[in-house]
């Protein structure tokens, strides 16, 4: 928390070191959250970059009031994604075609993991919107329950309940899938 307070001071003063730190710490997690939501690498890269530029725009007015910086940043990311889908008229299909992970040393293993992950992502798509969002924020963005609660404007108890029901639903679906293999 103290780290967040110092960082937020640097962000407000537009110190390059503070912004570099913010970027290093959060960019991969923001990207993961977004790519799972928009299912397209190029769009996810664009939106991720926009999140940091939006943060920079609102940086001078950002006041640290005890809430983690992650909540602020992921709220921006969430709004970016909502805007993206709201304005999207292309009717794109939501299939994540790109390779999710690369492993040059072991391409076969990478292919297996990609397939497994794609299956998990597909099953996540069958959850309710609220369950899916909790799972994405908890496991892709790696936020704590308290941080997820702040991003979504819900209580921690509600987040835990949704996490539990989402994992129970995923367990059934993933077990069903393994049974077919």
């Amino acid at each position, binding site marked *: 928390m103290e780290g967040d307070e110092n960082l937020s001071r640097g962000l407000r003063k537009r110190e390059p070191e503070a912004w570099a730190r913010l970027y290093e710490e959060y960019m*991969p997690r923001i990207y993961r959250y977004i790519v799972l939501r928009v299912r397209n690498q*190029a769009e996810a890269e664009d939106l991720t970059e926009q999140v940091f530029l939006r943060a920079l725009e609102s940086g001078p007015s950002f006041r640290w009031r005890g809430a983690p910086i992650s909540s602020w940043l992921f709220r921006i990311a969430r709004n970016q994604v909502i805007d993206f889908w709201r304005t999207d008229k292309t009717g794109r*299909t939501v299939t994540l075609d790109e390779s*999710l992970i690369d492993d040059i040393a072991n391409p076969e293993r990478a292919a297996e993991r990609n397939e497994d992950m794609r299956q998990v992502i597909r099953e996540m798509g069958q959850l309710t919107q609220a369950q899916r969002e909790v799972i994405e924020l*908890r*496991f892709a963005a790696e936020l704590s329950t308290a941080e997820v609660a702040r991003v979504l404007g819900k209580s921690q108890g509600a987040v*835990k309940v949704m996490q539990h029901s989402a*994992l129970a639903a995923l367990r059934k679906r993933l077990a069903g899938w393994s049974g077919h293999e």
Partner: protein
Amino acid sequence: MSRGIEGILDTCLERVRLRGESIEQCLDSYPEHASELEPLLRAALRVMDVSSIRPRGEFGRVARSRLLSAVSTGNVRGKERRFPMVRWQRGWAVALAVILTIAVVGGGTVTASSGSLPGDVLYPVKTTAEKVQAFFTFGDEANARFHMKAAERRLGEMESLAEKKRAIPESVLGRMNLETERAIEMLGRVERVKEELASQVVNLTSKQKTVLERIQQGGASLEFEQMLRDALQRSERAQTELERMFPDLKKLRLTPWVNDRELEP
């Protein structure tokens, strides 16, 4: 009790995720909940694998440099989107391209494409013509009708492909669900939905269920079976949404199913 397990699950997830503990270590702490916790934690472990998704290194470097440059110069709006053509411009571009295509190949080709199926040479002409039609469709009710008809067409295409024992592409399944969901979304914006329109959308979702189940019974690969199940679930969710929107649904007089050809513009 129920709240208890949710809290314990969360604690275990944090111990596994942050402290690197094994599932067994956590289960040992809660032996009375072990049987319920274990499958949930194992599912969570599979989901946690998404944290290995990484952005491209090149993107990371370029975006970082652009951000720091914006920090120094204060020029936040300097970055152009990768696709600078905004969506409505892209729409106009598609419309223009189709009008030019029609001018070159003739309107007859577009008409001839109306019976084409995915995989046919003329199918892209059919879908592009639909995009143009979508572009020039204004108003929530008209859009609801348009998306409903598009969903019906995709369903009709699936039926025809199944009859001809041809493969049904995943994109057609997804498109059918998407068009249905859009039709419902548009209906939600219409102040007073006409009974005839509501009943047509209701008919559509129940017809989808029938057709998808029939295709399922016809036998399919495991992966396609899974896709069919997903599509069926989306259809069922759409039906539930309709029931929520129109609680008097059962009172509506359901119109008979209209086949694909009758719905062609």
